[in-house]
């Protein structure tokens, strides 16, 4: 790639923000969406012995958070390489 450091930094930052926003939307949906705002509607569904909304509030959201961070780590490592900002 033959772009200037500045262009690279701008491109990197744009993609970073896009990734972050996407993951934060999921973060919001699994916790505030499924576990708080729509909990009553989801509770009508049974999921492995749990009312689904309750499961999201006490189990599912936490699993999702862990997965989200690791997806972020993985994607950012790719991004670091793509724009040649990786350490070592």
């Amino acid at each position, binding site marked *: 790639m033959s772009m200037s*450091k500045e262009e690279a*930094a701008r491109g*990197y*930052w744009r993609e*970073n923000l896009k990734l*972050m926003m996407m*993951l*934060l939307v999921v*973060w919001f949906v699994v*916790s*505030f969406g499924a*576990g*708080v*705002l729509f*909990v009553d509607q989801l*509770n009508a569904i049974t*999921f*492995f*012995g*749990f*009312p689904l909304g*309750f*499961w999201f*509030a*006490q*189990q599912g*959201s*936490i*699993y999702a*958070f*862990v997965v*989200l*961070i*690791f997806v*972020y*780590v993985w994607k*950012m*490592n790719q991004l*670091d390489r793509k*724009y040649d*900002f*990786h*350490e*070592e």
Partner: protein
Amino acid sequence: MDTQTLIYLFVGATFALYIGIAIWSRAGSTSEYYVASKGVHPIANGMATGADWMSAASFISMAGIISFTGYDGSVYLMGWTGGYVLLAMCLAPYLRKFGKFTVPEFVGERYYSQTARVVAVICVIFISFTYVAGQMRGVGIVFSRYLEVDINTGVVIGMAIVFFYAVLGGMKGITYTQVAQYCVMIFAYMVPAIYISILITGNPIPQLGFGSEVIGTGQSVLERLNGLGAELGFGAYTDGSKSTIDVFFITMALMVGTAGLPHVIVRFFTTPTVRDARKSAGYALLFIAILYTTAPAVAAFARTNLLTSVPNTAYQEVPAWLTTWENAGLIAWQDKNNDGVIQYGPGTPFVGAPKFTDERGANGERLLSNEPTAAATELYVDRDIMVLANPEIAQLPGWVVALIAAGGLAAALSTAAGLLLVISTSVSHDLLKSNMAPNITEKQELLAARVAAGVAIAIAGLFGIYPPAFVAQVVAFAFGLAAASFFPVIVMGIFSKKMNKEGAIAGMVVGLTFTFGYIVYYKFINPAATADDWWFGISPEGIGTLGMIFNFIAAILVASVTKAPPEKIQHLIEDIRIPRGAGAAVDH
């Protein structure tokens, strides 16, 4: 060996381990003392963060709170884990790239202002002391319950241990001690949880047992809980009693507050690279999630057990653990209708905490001098019982009880040490070195940090011995203030190049004053106020979210009419946004 001997053995062995680690990892420079020379492996840092984060309250009280509040308890589960997502994506990698020692240091440099730095230091000290008071009390309580020493003696022993490894080892000593403490506490939490899960559902994984059928009933755990609760007049376990807006705001305040807590943020300053900072946030949450997904299962099992074995049972036929913990003062029964049978239902059985007389009643129960209430319920159950009594409920051997004692101490000590370090660092680095005495040598600064840690431990100990009556109430402060002050200032410092000194200070002042004022008004000035009086139905616990929004608004408004930050700062922001280049993550 009897249980008491085992407890001494386990607690003694873990303490010896912590001290051994402290001696092995003692700090020789300020970099070692403040950030463990930025050489901590992401998995080790993840465990240390987990231990740092999970306090005596997480270990001992959280399952109990959920047990008594059902769905409403979800605010803690989501709130105290979801913050790590924000931390990993919005703060940790950039602060690591910035590459300094403390949170106030970032605020001061990014906003080119000593005033901002001093405001930040005051916030750090206030938030951390609020928190640490509860930890020291927790240490004292575990000591007095398990080791049969006085609470105050327990606090002093705890202080001595923390003093030893925090003052000697600094961040380096604390980090490796916390790794050991994480292992002790997670093992201590999981063993009884797995046994109880097998006992009630036959499934050895508590997270799955939580959704399974209760053996011999054909009903799932939650169906049974809802059913048993309804018979006794309780609301459904899976439905909440708080309003949706309040649940939303409390959860958000806890999440954002978590991401803004200085003792958590500073852990991400200790990794070798930016990449490791991201990764260790993932590990930290993974290690925390093990306990946080088990806690609601433990809560449901313990409640099922309580509701099946105790209500409408004659006192003389109740399981042995009930009388054991009655003797310890955590359960009390007042036979209001004199039928010798325990009635249990919603409401409180009597006014205030139980005050036992030395006499025994007709059935052998401990008599109380409390004024009974009009409610039919006769049973008082301390929420901590849900974790503490588990080994006996599941009829586990004595060594498991000993494990719980060691685990509770590990949880309290690790959190206390992390907080004390942050306090001492703020004093020696942000107040002394950068403000009051910039000419001191590194040796003197290190000495100052150690002296500050010693003084902070002594003050924390005093809080433990003479707990201010409002300790439980001010926890809302710590999260609310962190949410309304640090989080917005740091996030805007990274994500906006236009945010300037004036905007940041205005934001912090508005966010802090509003949140502080609201909490003080509803907690202390007008504690009789009900949910109807709250703004939009938001409780003081959740008001930090609104404070955060006000902080953002004020900062953006003020920044738009004042001068943009100098070019030097714009370059600084560009630097911290990329992991390498224009100064890689440096060693200071």
